[in-house]
C-alpha cells in the first residue's frame, strides 16, 4: 500500500460520486464498498507511516496552503503588503480577516502551486523583508487588540546573497523577540513544513497546533543527513532521529494539539481538512481568549523560558 494507491482509490470514489449525483443511482453499492475500503486501508496505512512518509505527505503539491485556508476559513480577507523598508515578499502573506464574525490577523508562508506561482512565491522561502512585513502587521494587530493566527509552511528562510545582505538573521531574531512579548493573543498552525528558524519566526505563540503529517524541525532531514551523518542516503534514518513528527513534538511539549488529516493526507480532501482545522482553531482561540493580555503574555514567556532538558543537580 502506498500513498499513490490511496490517491487512486480516492479518485475512483470521486468519479463515482459525480455519476451518482447525475442520477446513476446503480453505482451506489459500488461507491459504498469503495468508501469502506478507503476508510479501512487509510487507517491501516496511517498506523504504519514512517516519519519520512509523513515528510513526503507534508511536501505534497496538492496539500492545502495558507491561501487555501484563508479562502476556506475566513471572510473579508484584506491582504496588506510591504515592509516599508525595502520591498514586499510574496513568500509571506499577511492581512486581516473575519473568523466567526470576529476580526483576526492572518499571516502565513505561501509556497505556490504551479511553477510560475512557486517562483513568484520563492517556494515559500522568505527573505528578510517578508519577516519585517510580518512584524509590521503583528504590531498593527497589537495596536488594535486583534488576535493573530499564523500558518507555518516553509522549508526554511531563503539562503541567498540578498537575504544575507539585508540581515536574514536579524529579521528572524527580531520577529521571534516581537512574538515573544507581543501584547495580543497568538495561535500558530503548522500546516506543512516547519523548517527551522524561518518557521519559528512565525511560530512563537500561545497555542501551537500542528497537522498530523506536518513536520517541524531545527533542520531539514536532508540537511541533517548531510551534516551529521555525512551521507545523503541516510535521510530516512536522520528523519527518525530528529523527532520531527506531530506526535514526537506533542510528546516533547513543543506543540499543544495534533489536527487529524483525512485519509492520512490533507491533499486527499481539502474540504475535510478545512473542517478539522476550523474546529481546532476555534477551540484554541476560545481557550486563549479567556486570559487577559497580561496573563497570556506572561504564560507565553513562561512557556518558552522553561523549555529545555538538562541536569541541574
Amino acid at each position, binding site marked *: 500500500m502506498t500513498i499513490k494507491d490511496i490517491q487512486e482509490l480516492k479518485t475512483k470514489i470521486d468519479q463515482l460520486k459525480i455519476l451518482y449525483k447525475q442520477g446513476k443511482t446503480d453505482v451506489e453499492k459500488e461507491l459504498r464498498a469503495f468508501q469502506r475500503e478507503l476508510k479501512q486501508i487509510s487507517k491501516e496505512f496511517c498506523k504504519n507511516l514512517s516519519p519520512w512518509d509523513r515528510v513526503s505527505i507534508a511536501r505534497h503539491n496538492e496539500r492545502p496552503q495558507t491561501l487555501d485556508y484563508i479562502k476556506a476559513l475566513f471572510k473579508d480577507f484584506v491582504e496588506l503588503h510591504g515592509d516599508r523598508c525595502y520591498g514586499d515578499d510574496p513568500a509571506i502573506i499577511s492581512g486581516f480577516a473575519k473568523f466567526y464574525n470576529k476580526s483576526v490577523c492572518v499571516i502565513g508562508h505561501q509556497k505556490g502551486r504551479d511553477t510560475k506561482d512557486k517562483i513568484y512565491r520563492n517556494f515559500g522561502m522568505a527573505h528578510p523583508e517578508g519577516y519585517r512585513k510580518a512584524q509590521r502587521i503583528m504590531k498593527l494587530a497589537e495596536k488594535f487588540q486583534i488576535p493573530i493566527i499564523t500558518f507555518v509552511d516553509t522549508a526554511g528562510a531563503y*539562503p541567498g*546573497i540578498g*537575504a544575507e545582505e539585508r540581515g536574514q538573521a536579524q529579521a528572524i531574531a527580531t520577529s*521571534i*523577540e516581537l512574538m515573544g512579548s507581543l501584547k495580543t493573543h497568538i495561535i500558530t498552525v503548522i500546516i506543512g513544513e516547519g523548517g527551522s528558524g524561518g518557521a*519559528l519566526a512565525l511560530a512563537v505563540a500561545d497555542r501551537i497546533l500542528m497537522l498530523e503529517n506536518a513536520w517541524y524541525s531545527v533542520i531539514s532531514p536532508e540537511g541533517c543527513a548531510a551534516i551529521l551523518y555525512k551521507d545523503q542516503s541516510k535521510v530516512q534514518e536522520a528523519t527518525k532521529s530528529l523527532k520531527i513528527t506531530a506526535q514526537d513534538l506533542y510528546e516533547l511539549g513543543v506543540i499543544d494539539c495534533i489536527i487529524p488529516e483525512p485519509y492520512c493526507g490533507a491533499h486527499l480532501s481539502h474540504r475535510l481538512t478545512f473542517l478539522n482545522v476550523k474546529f481546532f482553531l476555534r477551540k484554541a482561540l476560545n481557550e486563549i481568549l479567556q486570559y487577559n493580555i497580561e496573563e497570556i503574555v506572561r504564560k507565553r514567556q513562561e512557556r518558552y523560558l522553561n523549555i529545555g532538558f538538562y541536569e541541574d543537580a
Partner: protein
Amino acid sequence: MSIFDFFRKKEKKENLWTKCEECKNILLAQELETNFYVCPKCGHHHQMNPYLWANMILDYNYTVLFEYIKPTDFLSFKDTKKYKDRLKMLKESSNTSEAITIFDGKLSDYPIILSVMDFSFIGGSMGSVVGERFKLASLKAVQDRKPHISVITSGGARMQESVISLMQMAKTSIAVDIMHKNSVPFITVLTNPTTGGVSASFAFLGDIIIAEPKAIIGFAGARVIEQTIKQQLPEDFQTSEFLLKKGMIDMVVHRHLMKQTLKNILSLLFYKNA
C-alpha cells in the same frame, strides 16, 4: 569546572609551537596566547577560550556561574556517534563544561555579567544548556541591574537536541526582551564564526553589536548559499566588514581594543556618572 581544572587540562595538551590558521606562520604558543590569540604576523583573530576572554576583559576577581546546569542526551540521539558519548568525551577533554560560560565580575570597576561561547564545544552549538545558562545570566543582569555582555561564536543550533534546540532561539530571544524592557544594556561581540540559530536569535538582538575583524557572520552557511543560488559569492561576503557596510552591525573592533571599547560604551550608556 574550576579555574584550577581549566589550567590542569590546558597544561596536559600544551604544545610549544603552533601555526597561524590564516598565514600559516609557525608561532610560539606562548607568544600567541599572550597576544590574546591574535597572530602577531598577520593579525588573524583565532578562537579564544571563554576563560581567557574573562581574563582579558574582567578585573581580577570574577566568579563563574551556573556551571551546575549540565547537558543530557534526552533523546538518545545517534548520528555517526552517540550524543551521550560525545558529551562524555568532552567532559574529559574540554576546558569548558558547555558551549557557553557565564562570568560575574567587573570590567574596569564596572559590574557586568559576561557570557562567552566556546566553538570547540560541539561547534559552539546552542542546546538546552546554552539556552538555560544564557537565560539565567540575563535574568541575573536584570535583577542586579548590570549590563550583560555576550561574546559569541556558534555554528548554530545543536542538532543532537533536535527541535528543543530550535526552541532555545525563542527562549534566549525572550530573555533578551526582558533585558530590553528593563533598560539593562545587552552588548554582543560577534567572533568568528557566528551563524545559524544563534545569529538568528540573541546575537543580533544586542543593543549594540560589535564584531571582531574578518569574522564570518550570517544566517545561512556560505556553502548552502552557493549550492542554492549556483553563483560564486562576493569575496568579502558575510565578513564583519561586509556587515558593517550593509548596516547590520555597529562597529568592527580589534581584540586588543575590545576592553577599552566596551568600557567606553558602558560609561556612555549605563555608568553615566562614573
